[in-house]
């Protein structure tokens, strides 16, 4: 065994992972090589010092700080989700705005058409030309005409009733037929 082989086998030597033959070769090399023996001794000292290093521990407020961070992260995550909901992508915003505008036009158009309110009318009174106004007034006129017609019919019926010959019903039936 040469010095390089000895150096390469050191860790397995400490871990007792060498075969008996390899182990004996290491011992034989140490006996004839003072440099490798010294190297072995130095490394064992270093490993002892490393094992003796103080164990650094987390500070007393480590967990408090951690849970504060967790709490604030959870809050931020919730805020981000709310923001994401209200602030979609720029394309989404435009589409949403366009959709809203179209909806407003349709809804307001329908409303004005239905109520007859002209845009710009300060008193908010129905416009005379609005279909609803016309419809309303046409309907009223028709109602008046209908009422008059009904009244005239009733009058005629009464007159006819008065002319019926109660003494001769068969004649009346023939007439009515």
């Amino acid at each position, binding site marked *: 065994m040469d010095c390089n082989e000895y*150096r*390469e086998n*050191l*860790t*397995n030597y400490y871990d007792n992972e060498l075969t008996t033959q390899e182990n004996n070769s290491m011992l034989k090399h140490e006996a004839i090589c003072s440099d490798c023996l010294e*190297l072995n001794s*130095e*490394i064992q000292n*270093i*490993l002892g*010092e*490393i*094992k*003796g*290093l*103080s*164990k*650094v*521990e*987390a*500070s007393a407020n*480590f*967990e408090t*700080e*951690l849970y504060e*961070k*967790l709490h604030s*992260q959870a809050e931020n995550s919730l805020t981000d989700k709310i923001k994401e909901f209200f602030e979609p992508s720029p394309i989404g915003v435009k589409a949403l705005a366009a959709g809203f505008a179209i909806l407003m036009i349709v809804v307001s158009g329908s409303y004005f058409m239905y109520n007859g309110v002209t845009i710009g009318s300060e008193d908010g009174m129905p416009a005379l030309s609005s279909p609803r106004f016309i419809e309303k007034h046409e309907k009223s006129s028709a109602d008046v005409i209908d009422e008059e017609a009904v009244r005239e019919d009733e009058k005629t019926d009464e007159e006819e009733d008065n002319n019926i010959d109660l003494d001769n019903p068969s004649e009346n039936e023939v007439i009515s037929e």
Partner: protein
Amino acid sequence: MSEEGNKFSDEDLIARFQNGDEYAFDEIVHRYKDRLVNFVFRFLGQIDEAEDIVQDTFLKVYKNKNAYENIARFSTWIYTIAGNLAKTELRKRKRRRIFSISRMGPDEKEFELPTSDKSPEEDADSRFTEKIIQTAIQELPEKFRTVVILRDIQELSYDEISMILEVPLGTVKSRVNRARLKLRDLLKAMDH
């Protein structure tokens, strides 16, 4: 849950946490905070940074609890997260150092050591030794530093280190050997 929690393995705890048991997370924190702070402190040399990184590690565990699958040991998973965060911090620090090196004075505090209960003389001696060893560990190339800390300070098995670093077992062993030899050279150069 602390006393009761001891009867659960790490893998049981993370499984309970995945099923909504928040106390299981508390137990994980209780179980791992000191060893992770020690691990990251030995890696970076700054206790405040180490604590921040370990807190970030637990935040990641909390947020990504379902990313853990019971195919590896929980310890290897959490050490991997902490190790990756520590390495990222180290790289950031190297970049910052490029810009601030001209402003560094001779008394620049590279690392801090925790207080101990030893006598003033013993304390001074051990602090000196610790500082030298810590300096030498930090002088090691990153891959050697990681294995020395995981094997010789954290005392993890080769299997665990192999899983954390995602390198074959033989590579871990050879890396540990070379890291120890390198550490010895560095300490010798520092007259230790």
